[in-house]
């Protein structure tokens, strides 16, 4: 059983109350959360120090405008935080940040992580066309019933890691019938318990891993299998890859938004990646025709081998793809297999080294010949 702070307000209002409390009592210097810019469902991540500005904070809004892991890395890339900041992020965003920390691209020091039992988010395009506002009642209904909410992103429907691994506080949402009236915040660390001392609300004991959560996990696992089967990832083969990635317009947006793709000097962005005239000539001689620009399959296979071991399956790549390539499904599947190989869950534990940076003397004899 864990300690739970129960606030008699609806889930979002309760969380906002907590953030306000933390700011006003100076327990944190700032709050990092989603904030709405208009009523149409356009939100972005913001740092807030003025508690009056929390009016516009929508910490639980079902949209991921960017993977916050990448943003937290940018905040702490040059130096770790000198004063505490409370960051409200989704489990996959937290995992992405932890993966970046392992790559020395940020520091978790002085962060207070507030996360949720995550019901998933809607695709970005729904925020652009303003549909998302109409969807909110349906979303809340799904969350209360502990179902997979319809129309959320494919990867969210298939996500098994929707309970955060290393959050200081976790807002329980899934399967809670009374989220309109009460907000339950699980205090996972001693730090969290200290921070909320004196806060209006009731301290009770509770279990985060409820039957509803277990049910949802098995529903999502089923959905995951279905997603992979429908996409036919394993049957793609070379022809399938050429066909699937043939639609790619080469904007490299998937890499730009990917929290794991952090290299400043990316091979694929460099001049070395461009082909010499002699290469075109030799390829044309061999094949009689060549795609322009070439190396699209190389780009995606290259990203797959570089990223898959740490892919958290956040789904940003699919969200931004203008050619509608099911990138996150492919990355999720390949990531799952590679991660299984090394018995690794990306972003679970900041102390656990990335598999490709360590080794055992006796292993993988089956890959040697």
């Amino acid at each position, binding site marked *: 059983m864990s300690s739970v702070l129960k606030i008699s307000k609806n889930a979002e209002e309760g969380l906002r109350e907590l953030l306000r409390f933390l700011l006003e009592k100076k327990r944190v210097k700032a709050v990092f959360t989603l904030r709405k810019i208009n009523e149409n469902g356009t939100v972005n991540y913001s740092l807030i120090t003025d508690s009056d500005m929390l009016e516009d904070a929508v910490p639980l809004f079902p949209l991921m405008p960017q993977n916050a892991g990448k943003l937290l890395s940018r905040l702490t890339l040059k130096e770790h935080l000198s004063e505490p900041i409370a960051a409200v992020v989704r489990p996959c965003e937290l995992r992405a940040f932890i993966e970046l920390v392992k790559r020395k691209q940020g520091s978790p020091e002085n962060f207070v992580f507030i996360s949720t039992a995550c019901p998933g988010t809607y695709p970005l395009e729904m925020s652009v066309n303003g549909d998302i506002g109409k969807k909110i009642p349906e979303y809340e209904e799904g969350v209360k019933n502990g179902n997979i909410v319809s129309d959320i992103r494919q990867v969210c429907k298939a996500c098994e890691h929707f309970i955060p691994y290393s959050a200081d506080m976790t807002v329980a949402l899934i399967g809670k019938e009374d989220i309109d009236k009460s907000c339950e915040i699980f205090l996972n660390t001693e730090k969290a318990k200290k921070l909320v001392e004196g806060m209006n609300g009731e301290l009770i004991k509770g279990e985060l891993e409820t039957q509803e959560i277990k049910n949802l996990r098995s529903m999502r696992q089923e959905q995951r299998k279905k997603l992979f089967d429908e996409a036919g990832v394993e049957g793609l083969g070379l022809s399938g890859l050429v066909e699937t990635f043939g639609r790619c317009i080469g904007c490299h947006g998937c890499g730009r938004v990917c929290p794991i793709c952090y290299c400043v000097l990316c091979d694929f962005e460099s001049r070395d990646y461009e082909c010499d005239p002699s290469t075109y000539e030799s390829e044309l001689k061999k094949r009689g025709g060549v795609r322009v620009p*070439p190396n699209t399959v190389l780009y995606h296979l290259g990203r797959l081998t570089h990223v898959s071991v740490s892919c958290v399956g956040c789904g940003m790549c699919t969200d931004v793809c203008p050619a509608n390539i099911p990138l996150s499904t492919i990355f999720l599947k390949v990531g799952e297999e590679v991660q299984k190989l090394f018995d690794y869950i990306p972003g679970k534990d900041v102390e656990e080294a990335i598999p490709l940076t360590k080794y055992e003397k006796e292993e993988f004899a089956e890959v040697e*010949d």
Partner: protein
Amino acid sequence: MKDEFEPRIIGFLCNWCSYAGADLAGTSRLQYPPSLLPIRVMCSSRVDPLFVISAFLRGADAVLIAGCHPGDCHYQEGNYYARRRFACVRKVFETLGMELGRLRLSWISASEGPRFANVVTEYTEKIKKLGPNPAKKKVFL
């Protein structure tokens, strides 16, 4: 005989062991098929998965990565990392339904000239049976 398929294998050989092993095979006048195109790297761990994929997509019939035996790496542990990385590329290939038979990792020491000749002979035979890399036929890569 003229039309017989002669595979082209790209070999990434580590400077300290496998490249020297290949040299030894040569100076020992051992016979092996002329199918391997060697590329010398300072360590098997220098081989980025991109090199392998690039060679494969450009139409190499197979890729060989060869380095020092485990425990004998000139840089103490490079080949252990190379093995993990290779396992990772292999898994990506496998998951996407691509041919695993065209990737190979072998340990060949500087004194193993005969082993080098054997590996190349054996691998060439295997690739001959597999046939040319289908990536050659793909116009749009």
